[in-house]
């Protein structure tokens, strides 16, 4: 009886039923929520007996070049199922998302870290501050365009060190 991964559609159905018009779009793995009613939908999801997502497992930011994204992994201990919600933040200069600290108290440190690494402002956060880096740190390190390397190397590894000439061996089980 492993943890059941709820499909995006199922989560979207829950979210729609609880707060109409809160789901932006959905795909098989995750459900994308709109920004404006975020805290409201999350609170409803936490309280509703059917979804019962009382436990915030993980909250982190991701940078997709054209937009930022905040990923929430929510878990129900009694029903033992886990769901992934995402919020897309198109504006890169002043990204801001509603804070869920009032819904799950465990979010305040992870939101501070997301702010520290990606610069995402969380409105309604009790004390949003840089938690890992010092206050005067220039820029947001985990953003893709944060060229911290000397000479501004393009982040991400385009080719392997020794470009392998031989064809890639297929994946097989060693006898």
């Amino acid at each position, binding site marked *: 009886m*492993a*943890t059941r991964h709820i499909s995006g559609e199922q989560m979207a159905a829950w979210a729609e039923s609880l707060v109409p018009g809160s789901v932006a779009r959905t795909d098989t*793995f995750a459900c994308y929520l709109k920004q404006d009613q975020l805290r409201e939908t999350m609170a409803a999801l936490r309280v509703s007996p059917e979804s019962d997502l*009382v*436990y*915030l*497992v*993980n909250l*982190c930011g*991701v*940078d997709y070049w054209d937009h930022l994204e905040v*990923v929430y*992994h929510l878990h129900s*201990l009694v029903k*033992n199922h*886990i769901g*992934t919600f995402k919020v897309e933040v198109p504006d890169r200069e002043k990204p801001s998302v509603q804070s869920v600290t009032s819904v*799950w*108290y*465990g*979010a*305040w*440190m*992870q939101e501070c*870290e997301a702010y520290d*690494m990606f610069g995402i402002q969380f409105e309604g956060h009790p004390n949003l501050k*840089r*938690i*890992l*880096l*010092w206050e005067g740190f220039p820029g947001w*390190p*985990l953003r893709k365009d*944060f060229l*911290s390397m000397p000479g501004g190397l393009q*982040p*991400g*590894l*385009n*080719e*392997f060190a020794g470009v*392998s000439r031989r064809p*890639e*061996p297929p*994946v*097989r*089980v*060693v*006898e």
Partner: protein
Amino acid sequence: MSPVTSEPFVINIGPQHPSTHGVFRIKATVDGERIVDAESVMGYLHRSIEKLAEERTYTQNIPFTDRTDYLSSMANNLGYCLAVEQLAGIGVPARAQAIRVIMSELQRLASHCMAVGAFANDTGAWQTPMMWAFRDREKIMDIFEMCSGARLTCNYMRIGGVAFDPPAGTFEEAVREVIRIFPPLIDDRADVLVENEIFVARTRGIGVLTAEMAINSSLTGPMLRGSGVAWDIRKADPYCGYEQYDFEIPIGYQGDCFDRFIVRLEEMRQSVKIIEQALDGLPGGPYKTEVPLSLRPPAGEAYARVEGARGELGYYVISDEGPAPYRFHIRPPSFINLTALKEMTVGGTVADAIVVLGSVDIIVGEVDR
């Protein structure tokens, strides 16, 4: 006549302090001995592993996971390898699954040994339990050195299995030795500390966390189980074949430092039971699925998690079919367990704050990543 007023002053239980388990700082506003406000300041050991991992291939990232929680490197490696295997859809042979279980349980034993010793040291027992913990841990470190070549940051797991096959005769014999001597050692530790009135007086009723507060601040591991919430990833979301083994989850009574301590002791006893069952049924066959170094998993994301010694250790890996992970996020149990530190320490004295920090059992490498 106005009552005697004393103004609070800020004291740094600072980065340079004998019992903050590393470079971690609590800025405590103190009124007399009582703590009025505690703000934890961290980041002194921040190496931005998540940024570095984006420039290295999937296999090159494995040594990074050793260095976050340097007291349980096996569990870290296992978490990351599970995430990548889930991403790339790679099967793991049965023998590798069993070895992974044995290794992560041995790592939990060693890490809890250290946690118990350090916690007793924080309550003031003049390093005696700490020295016993170091002595007991040596036997497990020898096994790790025998199998992976390193005592602390083993780098033993690979995507698809384990790096080397453990040496035929000596591994079995060494693990049998650990199984034979650890239960009496754990009972001895319990006799010395749990029945000791001074230890109970210092830990009972200190840093109390209700179950509701623990769940709400997303704590994991002994912190959550200490408050009476039966939640263990090995039972809830079994990986590497944990569903075959018969073991129980220890939970506490009222979520104070004492309960977390007896939960850790009980977990050590359960780990020995698991190791014994895993060792008896150790299957033969391949220990690894051959995975090319230039692995390019299909686009997508995966969140895999492991029950580390400090709690749920999750790896959220996003791949864009490139050689390196597009996003590599670690869900650090030590970092998130500190969420409720302020609620637990405010109201107590400075000495209680040290005991509470000891019971949270943080590893600053994992807190700062």
